[in-house]
C-alpha cells in the first residue's frame, strides 16, 4: 500500500513550497497565555475559560495534511466524530468539548477542523507543548543538585514551587513561544533570544529585548538576551538547560552534546556500546585523548561526539553547592565566586576544547564555529525535522519513537516541512489522522500495537479535573505538623501535587520525575489508581461544596438541581447531565447507566444529599473515561 501525502495548501504564504525549511524570519508575535495553574500570580479560583467556542465567521481553516493510515481502513476501528473530538479536546486542551462544539461536529463532521484550530490557538496548547518537551529535556526535576539555591534575589519568591515554575521552565517557554506563535520550529535553536521570567533574569542575568509589535508573551515572561556573553542560539544558550545537564570533570561536555544529538536529531550516542577499556588507562588524559582518535571502537562515536561537544566549552558548571557557599545569609561574598546573577558562560574558556580534546567544533563533519552556526546546522539537518515530527507523533499517540513505522515517519516529516516547520499544522495532521482517531485495530494488524485508548497523563488529569470542578490539588507540605521538623515552613511553598514528586504524585501517577524516571508510563498501577481516586474524591467534595452555594448559572456541574431535592426524576436528569459534562457520554435518564449511578447516589443519601452527590461525582471523576481518552 502506498502511503501517500496529499499536498498541503499554503494558508497565507509568500514563499513557495519546497522540501527544505525556508530561510528564517525573525518576526515575532507576542502571545498572552492566560492562566494555567503554574502561572505565577494566578488568581485563587480556576477561571472558567472553557474550551473555545466555534466561531461563527471564522478565517479559513488551517490546512491539514493527510497522513497515510497505519493500516488499511478495514483493519481500523475509528471513533465516531464526537468521540474523536472528545479525544482531541483532552489531548490539545485538557478539557471536554463544549456542548456547542459537540453539536457542531454531530451536525457536520467537517466542523472538526475549525474546532481543532481553536484548540491550537488557545493558550492551553502552549502548556501541552511544554509538557511534551519536558519529557524530552527533563527539566522539571526536583533533585537539589539541579536546583539553584533560593538565596539572595531568589529568596522569598514563593519557595521551591515558584522557583520550579519560573527558572527551569525557561527553555520550555521558548519552545512554547515558537510553537504557539507559528514560528518555524527550528527557531527553538536559532532564535536570538530567550523567554525568561523575572526570577530567571535574576538568576542568570539577562537584558530585556523589545517585543515585536503584536507579539504576545505570557504574563510574567519576557524576551531577553543573556548577559554572560554566550552566542544566542535558542535553548542551546540556556543556563537552565545546562544546569540540568551539567558537564563534570572529564566529561568535557559530551553529555551535553549527547542531549543535543538525541533530543533534536534522534541520533544519540548512548544507545551504542562502549568497547572494552581493558588496555586503556582512563586516568591518563593523554592516553584517553589518543584512544579517542585512534582506537576504532572509540572513534566511531567520538569523531562526531567530541566536535559537537566543543561548541559548549564556554559553559561552566554552576554547582549549587558552590553558590550556597558564596552566600552569607542573603549577602553574597563575591570572592567566593558564585553570586547571582550567575555567569554561566565564560567566553575566555570557550576554546579550552583545544587543550582538553583537541577537536575543533564541527557538526557531524560539517564546519561550525560556535553555538549560532551549530544552531543553523541543526536547523538545516533533515534529521531535525524528522526527529521533531516523530516526537510530536509519539507524544500524542503515546508510542515509542522506535515503533513509528518508517512510512508514517516520512509522511510526518513531509507534512512538517510542507507546513514550514510550524507545529500547529503538524499537530493538526496528527490528531485529525485515522491513526489518532483509531480506537482499535484488527488482531494481527501492524497498527494494533499503536492505536487504542490513550492514557490521561498526570498533567492532563490535573487540567481536566480543574476545568470540570474548579479544584486545584495543591498542598503546603512545609507547614508545621505535616512535614519533618527539618523542613522550613516556607521552603516548599504551595506545591501542585500532580506536577511534583517530592511531596506530590506525578511519578506515582505515571509521569516522569526527570531524574530516574525519564519515560512516562501509560499503564495503570495500584498507586496510580490511588492517586486518581484521591483526586476524584477531593475534587468531588470541592465542587459539591462550591456549586451548592452558587446560583445555578454559575455552577460548574450541578446545574439543574438544588441540594435538598432528591426526587428521582430530577436526580436522574442531573445524573444524565453529569455523564454528558464529565464523561462526554450521552445517556438516557431512564437508561441502565443512570440506574447504576442512581443506586450509588442512594447509597450516599444516608449521609444527606450533598454526600450523595459527592459520592457519585467521586465515582464519575475516576471513571475509565477520565483515566483514558
Amino acid at each position, binding site marked *: 500500500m502506498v502511503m501517500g501525502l496529499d499536498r498541503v495548501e499554503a494558508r497565507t504564504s509568500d514563499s513557495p513550497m519546497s522540501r527544505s525549511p525556508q530561510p528564517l524570519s525573525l518576526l515575532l508575535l507576542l502571545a498572552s497565555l492566560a492562566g494555567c495553574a503554574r502561572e505565577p500570580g494566578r488568581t485563587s479560583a480556576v477561571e472558567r475559560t472553557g474550551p473555545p467556542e466555534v466561531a461563527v465567521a471564522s478565517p479559513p481553516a488551517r490546512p491539514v495534511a493527510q497522513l497515510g493510515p497505519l493500516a488499511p481502513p478495514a483493519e481500523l476501528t475509528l471513533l465516531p466524530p464526537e468521540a474523536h473530538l472528545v479525544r482531541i479536546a483532552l489531548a490539545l486542551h485538557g478539557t471536554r468539548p463544549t456542548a456547542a462544539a459537540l453539536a457542531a461536529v454531530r451536525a457536520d463532521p467537517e466542523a472538526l477542523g475549525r474546532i481543532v484550530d481553536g484548540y491550537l490557538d488557545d493558550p492551553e496548547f502552549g502548556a501541552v507543548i511544554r509538557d511534551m518537551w519536558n519529557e524530552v529535556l527533563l527539566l522539571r526535576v526536583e533533585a537539589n543538585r539541579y536546583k539553584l539555591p533560593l538565596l539572595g534575589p531568589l529568596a522569598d519568591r514563593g519557595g521551591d514551587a515558584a522557583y520550579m515554575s519560573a527558572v527551569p521552565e525557561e527553555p520550555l517557554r521558548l519552545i512554547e513561544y515558537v510553537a504557539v506563535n507559528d514560528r518555524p520550529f527550528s527557531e527553538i535553536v536559532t532564535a536570538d533570544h530567550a523567554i525568561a521570567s523575572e526570577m530567571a533574569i535574576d538568576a542568570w542575568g539577562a537584558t530585556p529585548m523589545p517585543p515585536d509589535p503584536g507579539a504576545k508573551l505570557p504574563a510574567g515572561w519576557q524576551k531577553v538576551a543573556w548577559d554572560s556573553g554566550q552566542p544566542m542560539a535558542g535553548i542551546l544558550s540556556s543556563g537552565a538547560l545546562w544546569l540540568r545537564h551539567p558537564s*563534570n*570533570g572529564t566529561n568535557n561536555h559530551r553529555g551535553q552534546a549527547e542531549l543535543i544529538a538525541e533530543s533534536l536529531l534522534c541520533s544519540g550516542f548512548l544507545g551504542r*556500546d562502549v568497547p*572494552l*577499556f*581493558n*588496555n586503556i*588507562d*582512563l*586516568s*591518563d*588524559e593523554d592516553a584517553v585523548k589518543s584512544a579517542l582518535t585512534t582506537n576504532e571502537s572509540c572513534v566511531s562515536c567520538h569523531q562526531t561526539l567530541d566536535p559537537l561537544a566543543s561548541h559548549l566549552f564556554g559553559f561552566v558548571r554552576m554547582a549549587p553547592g558552590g553558590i550556597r557557599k558564596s552566600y552569607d545569609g542573603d549577602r553574597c561574598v563575591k570572592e567566593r565566586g558564585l553570586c547571582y546573577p550567575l555567569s554561566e558562560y565564560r567566553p575566555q574558556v570557550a576554546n579550552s576544547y583545544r587543550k582538553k580534546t583537541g577537536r575543533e567544533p564541527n557538526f557531524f563533519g560539517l564546519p561550525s564555529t560556535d553555538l549560532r552556526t551549530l544552531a543553523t546546522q541543526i536547523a538545516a539537518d533533515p534529521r531535525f525535522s524528522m526527529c521533531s515530527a516523530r516526537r510530536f507523533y509519539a507524544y500524542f499517540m503515546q508510542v*515509542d519513537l522506535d515503533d513509528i513505522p518508517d512510512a508514517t515517519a516520512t509522511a510526518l516529516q513531509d507534512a512538517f516541512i510542507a507546513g514550514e516547520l510550524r507545529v500547529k499544522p503538524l499537530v493538526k495532521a496528527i490528531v485529525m489522522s485515522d491513526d489518532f482517531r483509531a*480506537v*482499535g*485495530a484488527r488482531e494481527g494488524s501492524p497498527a494494533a500495537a499503536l*492505536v*487504542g*485508548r490513550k492514557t490521561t497523563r498526570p498533567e492532563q488529569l490535573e487540567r481536566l479535573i480543574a476545568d470540570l470542578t474548579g*479544584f*486545584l490539588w495543591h*498542598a503546603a*507540605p512545609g507547614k508545621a505538623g*505535616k*512535614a*519533618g521538623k527539618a523542613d522550613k515552613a516556607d521552603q516548599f511553598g*504551595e*506545591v501542585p*501535587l500532580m506536577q511534583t*514528586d*517530592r*511531596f506530590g504524585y506525578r511519578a*506515582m501517577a*505515571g509521569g516522569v520525575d526527570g531524574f*530516574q*524516571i*525519564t*519515560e512516562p508510563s*501509560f*499503564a*495503570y*498501577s*495500584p*498507586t496510580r*489508581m*490511588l492517586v486518581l*481516586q484521591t483526586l476524584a*474524591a*477531593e475534587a468531588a*467534595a470541592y465542587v459539591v461544596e*462550591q456549586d451548592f452555594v452558587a446560583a445555578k448559572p454559575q455552577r460548574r456541574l450541578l446545574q439543574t438541581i438544588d441540594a435538598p431535592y432528591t426526587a428521582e426524576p430530577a436526580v436522574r436528569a442531573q445524573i444524565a447531565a453529569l455523564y454528558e459534562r464529565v464523561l462526554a457520554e450521552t445517556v438516557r435518564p431512564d437508561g441502565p447507566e443512570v440506574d447504576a449511578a442512581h443506586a*450509588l447516589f442512594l*447509597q450516599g443519601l444516608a*449521609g444527606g444529599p450533598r454526600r450523595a452527590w459527592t*459520592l457519585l461525582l*467521586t*465515582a464519575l471523576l475516576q*471513571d*475509565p473515561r477520565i*483515566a483514558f481518552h
Partner: protein
Amino acid sequence: MSLHRRHFLFGAAAGLGALAVPKVSRAADGPRFLLIVFAQGAWDVTHCLDPKRAPACDVPEGAVTAYPNGVRVLTSAARPSVRGFFDAHAGRCAVVNGLWIGSVAHNPARIRMLTGTRSERNPDIGAIFAATTAEQRPQLALPYVDLGGGAYAGPLASVMGRVGSTNQLVTLIDRSKAFRAGPRAPGSRFAPDQGERDALNRFVAARAEAAAKAPGSAALAGYRGSLDRAESLRRDPQLLGMEVGRTTTLAQQGALAVELFRGGVSCAAFLDTRLDWDTHDDIADQGRSHEQLFAELTQIAGKLDAAGLLERTTVAVLSEFGRTPKLNDQAQPGKDHWPVTSALLFGGGVRPGTYGATDDSLGALPVRMDDGTQADSGQLLRFDNFTAGLLEFMGVSSKRWISNVEPFHGPFA
C-alpha cells in the same frame, strides 16, 4: 580513610577462626522473594567486591579476606561493617565480578542493569518476577513495591507501585496524614465509609468491565486490576504505618520491605541505598558509603532472618557500572566511570562464591556461562546474561523480555 596510590595491603585469608561456620545457602520451600538494592551512582568495586593491587589499580587500605566458600572481599578496620556483614553472611553470598555494562552513562547503564535491555520501557527484573508470581499468588496487593524510586515496570505497571520519595503513598490511603491543603484548594475532604467505598468500587469496576468489551481496551485490564489492588493497599497496616514526609534510608526501606513480604502484600521490592557513589572527586566517600551500605545490609539481613525469610529471599545488590582502576586528576582525586562492575547476591539459595573475572586492571575477562569461571574460551559476561540468569534462578523464563541471550548460571544453583 585515606587512599594511598601505591599502597596495598594484601593479607592472607586471616582470621578464619573468627568467621562464622559457613552455612550452605539453599532456597527453602515456599514462596520466594526478591529484594533489589541499587547503589545509584556507581560504586568502586575495588573497595570491596573485587579487590585489586597497586600499581595496576589505585586501591584503598585494607586486606583481602577470603572465606572458605570462595568469597574474597576487601575489608578494613576503617570499614568494620563490611567485615561484619561477610563474617555473618559469606556462607550465603555470591559475588559476581567482571560484569560488562557497555555504557558509562548513568541512566542508560542503570536501565541495562535492571532490565537486561537498553530500553526504559521494558520491565526490570523485579517487575518481571512480581508479575509472574502474582499469577500464582493473586492475593498480593502490591506484588512489586518501589520503595527507593526508579524501578521500571513498563507494561507490567499493574503489579508495581511507588511509595514516593517521602512516602507520600501514605497520604493517599490515610487522609488524616495528607499534607495540608494549599490556600487555593480549600474545602472539606471526602472520606467514604466502608459501605460507600464498596459501592463506589463496584460501580467503577462495572464501568471498567463494560468499557473493556469495546475494541482497543487492553489498557483497561490494568485499570481494573489496579482497582482491586488499590483497595487492598488501603487496608495494609504496614503501609499505613509508614512515616510520611521523610526520605527513607536503605535500612528503613528494607524493614518495610520485609514487613510487606511477611504480610503477604509484596513479593519483590526495589530499594535505593540513598548514598553518594558518584565519586568523581574525593574517593574517600566510597569508603564511607561502603561502610554505611554494609551496616544497613546487615540490618536488612537480620530483619529477613527474624522474619524467617532469609533463605527464601534473594537480595541482589547492584550498581549501574563501576569506577576506573586509577584515580583522576581532580583536586580531591576520585574515580570516573568504568563499564565493568560487580554484583552481590545473598540469600534465597544462591550458590556462594566468587564468579566472573577481571584482570589486574579491572578489565572484564571471558568466563564460562555455566559456572562463571574464567576461561579464554568463554565469553564476556554482559548485563543481559546476568539479568537473564537471575530471572531464570527466580523461576521466571527470561526469553520473553531478554531475548537471544544466554543466561548466566554461575551463582544460580
